[in-house]
Structure formats: structure tokens, C-alpha cells
């Protein structure tokens, strides 16, 4: 009983809103449609997105699109409320974590029936299609390829006399070279932030060891792996290669709290599509590298994620029109040029070729990074199980307990593992 409102009821009850012009016109022609589109992002993303919307509606005058965008933190409660209230927008931007939650509960429509007809994904990368597939059904259309990446301050590293090989650098490098950064800055900065609480980095490290976060909805790692992980970071911490727990805890996920932005560390562990955003807040030129490797030739840790997707509401009144827009969004060179790589590198090879020459230097770096990653990257992992989001939060909290000395790595490993088992058990 998701507050069931029949369409008839909905139309009746929204007459007042109609009077206020809220819903625009009712579809009076077969083709005409009024779509609602919602996405998270800042004004920069909105400008690009609306640019494409304007282009689309100019070509399709019978379709109108009302766009709405919000910051990440406000976005999810609003989408949840709208969905629960039976008022979901037609096209919803989704994140890899939430898309599973919404899809498995039937709030998003499978797109398989449209593929090859109104939705042309022939030029799409195979892994991008797989990322958007949940339980065998295509749910999300990838809006950009992104991968785990280390973004670093080239000037600080150069000043400290530290040089890393962007595609081959290792945790040993961090341990051995890290103290130099601390010395050259008089202790004001460390080479890296404390990455022990970053799930993406932990997953990368596990994958390099031939393991994974999840397999078949169960953890694919052992308690000892967690202990080893925390011990690795304790060693780095003791060597002053990374910042103090105090400084790390200031990072609450917002860009402006990142140690790299606050001039506390020379790098940040993030995703490749964030490079441009970081550059606007850091005066020195930034570079991009892989997550540290366990050995210089280690492979398979990285994978080509999708930064975000467009998904179709299962309650959309005009799915054809919505698909038409999504197809336009990901398959038109004009649209690709407007969008750039702001959402990540285009998932379609044709669009990549169209957009690359138009990019600025920093964006070119991102495209090159994704391309170079090809040889290192492994398969994309399966969609995380429900409650994976809660486990991500738990890892952060556990990492802080270890960093602040409230729990030893030896105890934290089994403790975290138990938490994972319990959380996964609860959701089923």
C-alpha cells in the first residue's frame, strides 16, 4: 500500500493544482507529453542539462520537460517522499547505490523493451550496460563512466621532491615517500588522507587481493582482511604518511571538507569525475592517478563505474516520450558537446569521440585516465545488496574507532565483519 492513488483519483485531486498551472496541460494529442525530470547537482550541471533539454524540446515541440535539481543531501529525501506519495517524476537521476534500492522495490521501470527501438545503446560500453542492470533487467542508462582515482596536488608533491608514477604507484610508495611531504610542509600537510574508512578504496584493495566486497549478497572477504586493512593504515598513520584522525574526521563527504581542499593533504581518494570540481577549489594544478596498488604490477582493483544513471519511473504516464529524451541525451553529438564530461566520460564510444576534441585540459586528463585504465581495470562488481549503504557508513565509523584508538585493528576486523553479517541479515 504505497499510498495508492489511482490515476483517476490523481487527476481529480489535482484540478486545483492544474488551475494554478502546476501540471501544465493534460495530454490532448497522442504524442504530446509533459515530462518531469529530477537530478542532483550544482548550477554547472543544471546549465548543461537544461541546455540539452532546450535542444530536445526545440526538436520535439509536442514534448515539454520540467526540470528540477537539488543538492545531493536534499535530493534523496525529496525523491523518497515523492515516490512514496505517488508523485514520482518521469525521469530520475540515480546513483549506483540507490538504483538497486528503488529498482528492487518496483519503483523504476525496466528498459529492455525499448532497447534497439527508441533506445539505442549499440555504441555503449558493455560494462556500462552491466552497471545499469539489476537482477537481469536494464534499469539505468549510464550518464558517464567514472572510476576510483587519486586526485593530487602536483605543486605540493613537487615541492616535497616526491614523484609518483600515476598508473603504477603503490602503498609502499605512500609509506616511504609520505614523510617527505610532512617534512617539507613543516607538518602542516601529509601526503594522503586517511583512506581506511573509504569503502571504494577498501573494495579496490580487496579486489587487488583477488577478493571482493560482496558476492551473492554475502561478504566476499574475511574478518582477517579487515584487520589487515586497518593495520596497513595504522602503519601509514604512525609513519605520518597520512593525516591525523582529527583532521580526517572533518571530512564529512562534502567537497569543501576534503583534506585536499583544506590544504591538509596532497591528495584525495575519490572518483575520476570529481577532478574538475576539486580544481575549482584548489589553487594549485591537480593531477590524477590510480588508487595505490599493492604492487606495481597489480591489476584488477579498479573498475569502470557509472557515475550516475537516468532511470524511468514505473508510474510514468509517458514512458515513450521519456525514453525519447534519454536516448537524445546519451546519443546526440550536440547533446554530448553541451554535457562535456561533467557527469563523467560518455558511456557511448561514438559520443566520446565527438566530445573529446572540445574539452579543456583538465577534462582531457579525465578522458585519458579512463582510457589508460583499460589495461588495469577488472570486471564490474555485481550491484551491491540492499543495506550496502548502511555498511558503507559502518566502515567509516569503524575506521574512526581504530584511528582514534578506541579499538585495535585485531578487534575491529571481526567486529566489523559481524556488523556486516547482521546488517545484511536484517534487510532480507
Amino acid at each position, binding site marked *: 500500500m504505497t499510498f495508492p492513488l489511482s490515476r483517476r483519483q490523481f487527476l481529480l485531486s489535482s484540478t486545483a493544482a492544474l488551475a494554478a498551472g*502546476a501540471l501544465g496541460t493534460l495530454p490532448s494529442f497522442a504524442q504530446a507529453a509533459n515530462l518531469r525530470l529530477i537530478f542532483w547537482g550544482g*548550477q554547472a*550541471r543544471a546549465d548543461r542539462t537544461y541546455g540539452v533539454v532546450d535542444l530536445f524540446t526545440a526538436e520535439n515541440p509536442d514534448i515539454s520537460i520540467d526540470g528540477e535539481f537539488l543538492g*545531493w543531501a536534499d535530493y534523496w529525501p525529496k525523491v523518497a517522499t515523492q515516490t512514496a506519495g505517488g508523485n514520482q517524476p518521469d525521469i530520475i537521476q540515480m546513483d549506483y547505490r540507490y538504483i538497486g534500492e528503488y529498482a528492487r522495490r518496483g519503483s523504476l521501470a525496466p528498459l529492455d523493451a525499448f532497447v534497439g527501438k527508441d533506445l539505442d545503446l549499440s555504441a555503449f560500453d558493455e560494462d556500462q550496460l552491466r552497471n545499469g542492470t539489476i537482477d537481469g533487467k536494464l534499469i539505468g542508462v549510464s550518464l558517464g563512466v567514472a572510476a576510483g582515482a587519486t586526485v593530487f596536488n602536483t605543486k605540493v608533491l613537487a615541492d616535497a621532491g616526491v614523484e609518483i608514477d600515476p598508473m603504477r604507484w603503490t602503498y609502499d610508495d605512500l609509506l616511504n615517500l609520505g614523510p617527505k611531504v610532512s617534512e617539507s610542509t613543516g607538518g602542516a600537510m601529509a601526503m594522503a588522507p586517511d583512506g581506511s574508512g573509504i569503502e571504494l578504496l577498501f573494495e579496490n584493495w580487496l579486489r587487488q587481493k583477488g577478493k571482493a566486497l560482496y558476492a551473492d549478497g554475502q561478504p566476499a572477504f574475511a574478518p582477517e582482511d579487515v584487520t589487515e586493512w586497518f593495520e596497513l593504515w595504522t602503519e601509514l598513520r604512525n609513519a605520518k604518511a597520512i593525516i591525523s584522525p582529527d583532521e580526517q574526521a572533518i571530512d564529512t563527504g562534502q567537497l569543501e571538507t576534503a583534506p585536499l*581542499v583544506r590544504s591538509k593533504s596532497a591528495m584525495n581518494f575519490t572518483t575520476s569525475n570529481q577532478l574538475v570540481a576539486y580544481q575549482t577549489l584548489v589553487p594549485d594544478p591537480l593531477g590524477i592517478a590510480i588508487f595505490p596498488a599493492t604492487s606495481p604490477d597489480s591489476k584488477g582493483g579498479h573498475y569502470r563505474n557509472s557515475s550516475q544513471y537516468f532511470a524511468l519511473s514505473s508510474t510514468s504516464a509517458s514512458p515513450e516520450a521519456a525514453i525519447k529524451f534519454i536516448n537524445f541525451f546519451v546519443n546526440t553529438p550536440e547533446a554530448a558537446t553541451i554535457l562535456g564530461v561533467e557527469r563523467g566520460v560518455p558511456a557511448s564510444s561514438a559520443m566520446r569521440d565527438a566530445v573529446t576534441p572540445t574539452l579543456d585540459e583538465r577534462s582531457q586528463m579525465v578522458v585519458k585516465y579512463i582510457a589508460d585504465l583499460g589495461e588495469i581495470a577488472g570486471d564490474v562488481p555485481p550491484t551491491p545488496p540492499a543495506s550496502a549503504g548502511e555498511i558503507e557508513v559502518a566502515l567509516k565509523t569503524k575506521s574512526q574507532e581504530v584511528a582514534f584508538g578506541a579499538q585495535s585493528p585485531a578487534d575491529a576486523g571481526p567486529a566489523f565483519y559481524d556488523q556486516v553479517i547482521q546488517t545484511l541479515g536484517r534487510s532480507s
Partner: protein
Amino acid sequence: MTDAPMKLTVVGVETPKWRKQLTSVVSHALLIGASILMLYPLLWMLAASFRPENEIFTSASLIPSSWSIDAYFRGWNGLRTSFSVFFTNSFIISILSVIGNVFACSLAAFAFSRLEFRGRKIWFALMLMTLMLPYQVTLIPQYVLFRQLGWVDTFLPLVVPKFLAADAFFIFLMVQFFRGIPKELDEAAMMDGAGPWRIYWKIMLPLSTPVLATAAIFTFIWTWDDFFGPLIYLNKMSDYTVMLGLRTFTDSTGTSDYGGLFAMSVLSLVPIFLFFLIFQRLLIEGIATTGMKR
């Protein structure tokens, strides 16, 4: 700081002039010191609105390395819809809320504090209960309700509850103040044949200027500052309020215009501060009970 005022009030009745002056100097020194401490964060924000973007998070100084009012222009038109629209919307919602809240809540408060009727205590308790439930859990059922009424995407969900005294805080506040108004006044009026309405209108309201002004100030400011209601109920940017516009400025996952954020944050404070300045006079003028026989 907390016990300072107590000490200051100890000063005896027959105070020599120099002591009065000393007290005054000490009081001002304390107040000025406290003001600076209180205001540093706001001054920092003001400075941030004038400084270069990449200096905002790396400098604690109050003086920007270079000054620019660029952020104000950038911010004002930084979103698809200009801030003049947001300000207009915020004004409409806030003013209507003030009118609704002051009127509806004072009616209810009059009933609770001056009228005798069966079930009064139960209703009062229920009213207080509405204050205690975290809004996060009533959000979705309320959304469904407003949607069935066809009110989503309009200002109605934000304004109508104010005309229906939905915020128990203000009823409770007014009850406490109404009870401080001498009962002899209503009794005298009753002798003259006045009914409840006349007592409410002719005695209670005029004598309650301080609390009504307080309610007006709080309603205006809190409505202005509220973002969760507008976030949930308003979908079109042309309906956005200032606070919602401000929140749209930053997105933790991408490029954000922080200079514009701070510039608009500063501007967003201006109307509520002015409203406060104007209405706080009523707090002072409302010494209606002075000289009244008790």
C-alpha cells in the same frame, strides 16, 4: 558571562554617580566583547562573499586579499531563476504566515487561557503532543494528504497550516502571556456586558503587544529560514524560496559557487533582520501593563 548581569543588578538604590558610570562602562564593555565574539562568524561570512573563490576555505582572516562584489552579481543570477523571484516568494509566504499564525494562535490561546469548557485540559495536552513528534515521520503521510488536496506545487501546504494554528509553540507561548494579564480587566468588562469576543479583541490583544510582536518576529524568521517544507512541496524553481535557492547553490558532489552562496546568504539575512528591527519596537512600546493596577 552568565552571572555577570546578576552582579550588575546588585547595585543599591542610592548609587553614587561615579558608580553608575562605572557600571555603565563595564556593561558596555561586556556587551561589546560578547557582540564581537558572537559576530565573528557572521563577519567571516561577509568577508567570504567578497574574496576570491579559491581563498575561501584556506583563509581565516577577515580581510580578503582582494575585494570583489562579483559574487553578488554571480549569485543573484546564478541559478536559472533570479533571486528576485525567490525573495518575492519568501515574502509572500512569510507575511501570510505571520498574519495566519498571530490570528489563529491568539484565538486558540485565548480559549485555553480564559475560557472554561469541558475537555479543555485534554485538548491542551493533545496540542502539546503535536509539538513532540519529530516531523520526519509525519512528512510522508502529510505529503500524501496535501497531494490529495491538490496542494503540492503551491504555497498552500506552507501557509494554510499557519491559519489553522498548526504550530503549538505559539499557542503555548501566548497562553503563558495571556495568563499574566490581570483577570480583573475581563471581569470588569464582563460586568459591562462584554462577551468573549469583545474581551479578546478589545482587552487581550491590545494588552498583548509584546507577545504578539514576538510571535510575529518568530513566525517571519522561522518561515523565512525553513527549507524542508519548501523542499518537499515546491517543485518548480519559479516557486522556490530564498532558503531553497541557497541550498541549491551547493552540491556536495560537484562544482559549487561558494562565493555566490555566501553573497546570497548575506543578502538573505537582510529582510529578516529588517523585520526584526521594525517589530522589536513593539517589544518596547508594549509596556502596556505599566502603571496598571494589579
